[in-house]
C-alpha cells in the first residue's frame, strides 16, 4: 500500500488497458479491521469464536500452511483472495499456503458461497484464526529462542530476532509433531492495513497454472471404481414450480435395443443407468415416457400481466416525505413501466455429480455453493442422517448462482442408491437450461419528478416479482412430492432499495415491493448473479436519465447534483474520466440508419459501489444493437487482489451486455422452451465490447464483494446509450431486434 499513499487525493495508473484508482490513506490510519458484513447466518455460517484453531489450519513440517476454510474457487479468484488474506496475517508467501478441498468431513461450515460474500462475510473469521495462529507461533518462538516476543520478526514463515545475527526458527519447526490445541478467541491483534505486503497486490491466481496445463481436476473428471453413468429423464423444459407433474406411463420396450440399461423410477423422478456413457445418453433420449403436464404457466408473453394482476404480499421498504404531492408539483415528471425477463444461469458446462451410496453411508462429489445445506437435503432424499453423508466439492464451470448443481447431486444419489453402485450423472444442455432455478422476471412502475435546477424531488418504485425457495430441488420434489412452502421475500428476492433510488438524495422517496406468490403458476426461481438488480437499474437509471434529459443537463452532471455519498461520486468520477466523457444533453438528433450513443449508469448488489459508461451502436433498419465499449468502475473498499477485481469487472460488463441484448427464458403454458444455445443465446466473440475495468480501491474501508456489483450499472448504461443514440426508451429487455424495431416504430 505504501507506494500509493503519496498520491494526491486520487490518481490514475494506466497500464494494460486497465485503470487502478487508489484513494489515498488518511494520515492517521488505524488498524482498519476487515469487518464482518451484514449477511444472514445461513450465508456466513457459525462464528469463528471458540472454534479449535487446529480445525482452521495445519502448519506442515515443510513450513507451509494448509487451510480448511469453508470457501473455495468458483472461477472468480476467491480462493486466491482468501489465501492472500491468510498468508498476509501469518507473514507467509503465496507459495507457502494452500487450501484443502471442501469436504463436509473436514471443512469448517462457513455457510453458502453466495452473494459475493466470501471476502466480506467469511474472510474475517479466517483472518481472526490466522492472527490467533501468528500470536501462538510468536509465543512459541519467544520461548524457544529465549527472547521477548516483541523482539521477533517474521518473513516467509521464518521467525528471526531483530538483531541480524540472532537465532531463527521456522513455523514448521516450531509446530513439528504438535498441534496448537487452543481456541480462536478473536482477540489476537490484526496486522494493520498499512503494513500489508500481499493483500492489495495482484498476486497470481493459484488455480490458473494447472487449468492452463490441462492437469486441473474438475468435477467432470472424477471417476471411481465400478462407476456407472446415469441420466435423468424429464419433460424437456420444466413447467410451473408447484404444479403436479405425473408420469402416466413408461415404455421400456422403447429402449429394448440398448443393452444393460436400468430404468429407475421414484415418484415422478426417472433416471437411466448404464455402464457405457453413450448408452446412457441414448437411453435417456430414447425412453418413451408419457407425462401428465399441467398447463399452469402464463407463457412468457403474458407473465408480466399475470404478476400485475396477482394478489401480492406488499412491503413498503422506504417511505419518506410526500411522494404524491411532490410529483404533482414537480416541473418535470416521468411515469413509466419496465419489464425484465426470467434469465438462466446457463453455466458453460451443464452440472454433473457423482454419488456412491452404500447401505449406511454415502459419498457425493459435486459443485455446490452450499456444502452443508446440500448434505442435509441429500440425507432427506436417502433417508439417512446428515452425518452419514459426506459431500465433497470439486470445481465445475462458473455457475453465477443457483444452477442445477444440487439437483444433479440428488439425482446421482437416488440413482446410486437404486442400483447399488456409484453413479455419475451429467445433465444435458437441455436439462440445465430447462430445469434451472431462474433469475425471476420483474415488472416495475416508476414515477419521478425533478425541479428546474435538476434536483430530483420525488422518486417512487413499485416492483413485482416472486421469491424463491432454494431448499427443495427438482429431484426431491419429483421423487417425493416434497412440499414447497410459499417463498417469503428476502433482501435478494424483492426490490433492492439501494438500486431503486438509494444512490440519490431524494427528499420524497418510496419503494414498494409487491411480492407475488411463486406457487401460483410461475417458474422455479433462485439467485442469479446480481439477482433482480439489472431489472431494477434498467428502470431506475433510465428514469433518472430521462429527468436529466428533460432538464437539459448532462447525465453525469445531473447525477452529481443529486448524490452526496463520496463513494458513489468516486465510481461516477472514475468512469467519467476513464471513458473520456464529453458533457452533453442526451439524444441530440442523429441522422442515418446506423447511430451511436453513450450512456451512464450506477448501481450495486448489496455492498460495494458500481458505475459504468457504455457506447452502443443501433442499426435502425435491422434493430440490431451492438455494445461497442463498456467502462466499469467498482469500489469494493480495500481491493484484496486488484487484478482479480479487474477480471470480475470485465466479467460483469460482458455478462451484463449479454443479458441486456440476448438473454430471456422463453416458455409456453406447459414449460420452458429455451433449451439450447440457439434458443437461449448469449453474447459471442464478434459482439464482445471493448472493456475497461476501473478498480477504485479504498484501503481505509472494509473489503466487500466484487463479483456482481457493476452489472446493474452496466446494464443501465447500455439502455441509456441506446436512448442517446435513438431518442427512444426501451421499456423491456432484452433488447432483441424485434423488440427494438417495435420500440423505434412506436417512437
Amino acid at each position, binding site marked *: 500500500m505504501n507506494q500509493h499513499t503519496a498520491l494526491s487525493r486520487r490518481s490514475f495508473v494506466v497500464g494494460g488497458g486497465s485503470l487502478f484508482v487508489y484513494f489515498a490513506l488518511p494520515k492517521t490510519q488505524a488498524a482498519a479491521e476487515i469487518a464482518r458484513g451484514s449477511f444472514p447466518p445461513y450465508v456466513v455460517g457459525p462464528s469463528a469464536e471458540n472454534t479449535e484453531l487446529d480445525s482452521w489450519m495445519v502448519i506442515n513440517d515443510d513450513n507451509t500452511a494448509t487451510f480448511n476454510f469453508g470457501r473455495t474457487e468458483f472461477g472468480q479468484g476467491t480462493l486466491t483472495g482468501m489465501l492472500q488474506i491468510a498468508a498476509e496475517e501469518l507473514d507467509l508467501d503465496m507459495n507457502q499456503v494452500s487450501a484443502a478441498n471442501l469436504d463436509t468431513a473436514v471443512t469448517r461450515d462457513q455457510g453458502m458461497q453466495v452473494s459475493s460474500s466470501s471476502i466480506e462475510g467469511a474472510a474475517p473469521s479466517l483472518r481472526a484464526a490466522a492472527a490467533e495462529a501468528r500470536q501462538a507461533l510468536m509465543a512459541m518462538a519467544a520461548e524457544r529462542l529465549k527472547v521477548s516476543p516483541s523482539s521477533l520478526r517474521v518473513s516467509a514463515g521464518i521467525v528471526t530476532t531483530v538483531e541480524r545475527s540472532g537465532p531463527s526458527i521456522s513455523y514448521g519447526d516450531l509446530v513439528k509433531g504438535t498441534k496448537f490445541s487452543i481456541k480462536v478467541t478473536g482477540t489476537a491483534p490484526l496486522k494493520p492495513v498499512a503494513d500489508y505486503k500481499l493483500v492489495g497486490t495482484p498476486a497470481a491466481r493459484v488455480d490458473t497454472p494447472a487449468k492452463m496445463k490441462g492437469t486441473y481436476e474438475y468435477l467432470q473428471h472424477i471417476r471411481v471404481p465400478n462407476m456407472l453413468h446415469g441420466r435423468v429423464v424429464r419433460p424437456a423444459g420444466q413447467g410451473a414450480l408447484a404444479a403436479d407433474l405425473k408420469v402416466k406411463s413408461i415404455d421400456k420396450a422403447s429402449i429394448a435395443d440398448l443393452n444393460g440399461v436400468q430404468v429407475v423410477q421414484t415418484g415422478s423422478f426417472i433416471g437411466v443407468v448404464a455402464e*457405457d456413457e453413450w448408452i446412457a445418453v441414448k437411453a435417456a433420449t430414447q425412453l418413451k415416457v408419457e407425462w401428465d403436464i399441467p398447463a399452469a404457466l402464463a407463457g412468457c408473453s403474458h407473465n408480466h400481466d399475470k404478476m400485475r394482476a396477482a394478489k401480492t404480499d406488499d412491503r413498503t421498504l422506504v417511505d419518506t416525505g410526500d411522494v404524491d404531492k411532490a410529483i404533482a408539483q414537480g416541473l418535470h415528471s416521468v411515469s413509466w413501466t419496465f419489464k425484465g425477463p426470467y434469465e438462466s444461469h446457463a453455466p458453460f458446462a451443464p452440472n454433473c455429480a457423482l454419488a456412491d451410496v452404500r447401505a449406511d453411508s454415502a459419498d457425493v462429489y459435486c459443485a455446490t455453493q452450499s456444502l452443508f445445506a446440500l448434505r442435509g437435503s441429500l440425507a432427506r432424499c436417502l433417508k439417512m442422517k446428515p452425518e452419514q453423508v459426506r459431500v465433497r466439492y470439486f470445481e465445475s464451470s462458473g455457475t453465477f448462482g443457483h444452477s442445477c448443481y444440487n439437483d444433479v447431486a440428488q439425482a446421482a444419489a437416488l440413482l446410486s442408491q437404486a442400483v447399488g453402485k456409484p453413479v455419475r450423472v451429467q445433465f444435458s444442455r437441455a436439462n440445465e437450461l430447462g430445469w434451472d432455478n431462474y433469475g425471476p422476471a420483474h415488472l416495475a412502475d416508476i414515477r419521478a419528478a425533478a425541479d428546474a435546477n435538476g434536483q430530483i424531488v420525488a422518486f417512487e418504485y413499485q416492483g413485482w416479482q416472486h421469491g424463491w425457495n432454494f431448499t427443495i430441488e427438482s429431484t426431491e420434489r419429483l421423487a417425493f412430492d416434497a412440499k414447497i412452502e410459499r417463498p417469503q421475500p428476502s433482501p435478494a428476492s424483492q426490490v433492492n432499495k439501494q438500486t431503486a433510488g438509494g444512490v440519490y438524495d431524494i427528499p420524497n422517496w418510496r419503494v414498494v415491493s409487491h411480492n407475488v406468490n411463486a406457487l401460483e403458476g410461475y417458474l422455479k426461481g433462485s439467485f442469479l448473479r446480481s439477482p433482480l438488480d439489472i431489472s431494477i437499474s434498467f428502470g431506475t437509471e433510465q428514469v433518472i436519465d430521462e429527468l436529466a434529459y428533460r432538464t437539459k443537463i448532462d447525465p453525469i452532471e445531473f447525477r452529481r447534483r443529486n448524490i452526496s455519498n463520496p463513494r458513489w461520486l468516486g465510481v461516477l468520477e472514475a468512469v467519467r474520466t476513464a471513458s473520456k466523457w464529453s458533457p452533453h444533453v442526451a439524444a441530440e438528433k442523429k441522422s442515418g440508419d446506423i447511430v451511436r450513443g453513450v450512456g451512464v449508469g450506477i448501481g450495486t448488489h448489496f455492498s460495494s459501489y458500481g458505475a459504468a459508461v457504455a457506447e452502443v451502436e443501433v442499426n435502425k433498419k435491422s434493430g440490431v444493437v451492438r455494445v461497442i465499449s463498456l467502462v466499469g468502475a467498482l469500489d469494493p473498499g480495500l481491493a484484496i487482489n486488484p487484478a482479480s477485481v479487474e477480471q470480475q469487472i470485465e466479467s460483469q460488463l460482458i455478462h451484463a451486455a449479454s443479458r441486456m441484448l440476448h438473454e430471456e427464458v422463453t416458455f409456453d403454458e406447459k414449460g420452458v422452451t429455451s433449451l439450447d444455445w440457439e434458443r437461449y443465446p448469449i453474447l459471442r466473440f464478434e459482439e464482445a465490447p471493448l472493456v475497461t475495468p476501473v478498480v477504485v480501491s479504498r484501503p481505509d474501508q472494509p473489503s466487500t464483494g466484487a463479483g456482481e456489483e457493476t452489472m446493474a450499472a452496466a446494464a443501465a448504461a447500455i439502455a441509456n446509450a441506446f436512448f442517446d443514440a435513438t431518442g427512444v426508451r426501451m421499456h423491456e429487455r432484452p433488447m432483441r431486434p424485434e423488440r427494438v424495431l417495435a420500440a423505434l416504430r412506436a417512437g
Partner: protein
Amino acid sequence: MSTYTLVVNDKTAEINAADDTPLFYVLTNALRLKGPRFGCGLAQCGSCSVLVDGVETRSCVTPVSDVQGKSITTLEGLAARYAREKGLPQTPELHPLQQAFIDERSAQCGHCYNGMIVKGSELLSRNANPDEAEIRREMNGHLCRCGTYPRVIKAIQRAAREMRSMGKQD
C-alpha cells in the same frame, strides 16, 4: 460394438465402442483425457473441441467411426504438435497460446479454455498474424460464460507475436 484404432496425440490406442459413439466419450472415458469437456452435445459451444488432422472438430457430434486412421490432437498434445510444426528440438511444456493465457490472466473458471486453445492454436497455425476482426470471426463459435472474450483475444495476439519472434530466431 467394434474395435477402433485411434491415433490420439501421436499415440495409438485400440478401443471398443459402438459405431455411433461420439469421439468425445472415447476421449474422456476410455482414454481419460482432461482436455475435451462436455458442454452441449450439440456442437454449439466448442467445449469438446479437438484437432482432427489439424482441423478444429467438435468431438461431441463426431462418431468415432469417422476418425479412424486420422490424427487426433487434444489439449494435451498441442505443445508437441506445435514443436513438430515449428521444427523445435524439444517439446515445450506449454504451447505459446497456453502461456499467453497465463500471462494475460485470460481464464476465470477455465472450462471453455479447452475449446479456446484448440481453436486458437488452429488459427495461429494457419495465420501467423491474424487481426482482431479475424480472431473474433474465427473464435465466434466458441462460447464463454465468464466474460473472458476480450482477454482471449489479447492472449491470441500475444501468442502470435511470441510465435513470430520465435520464427525469426530460427
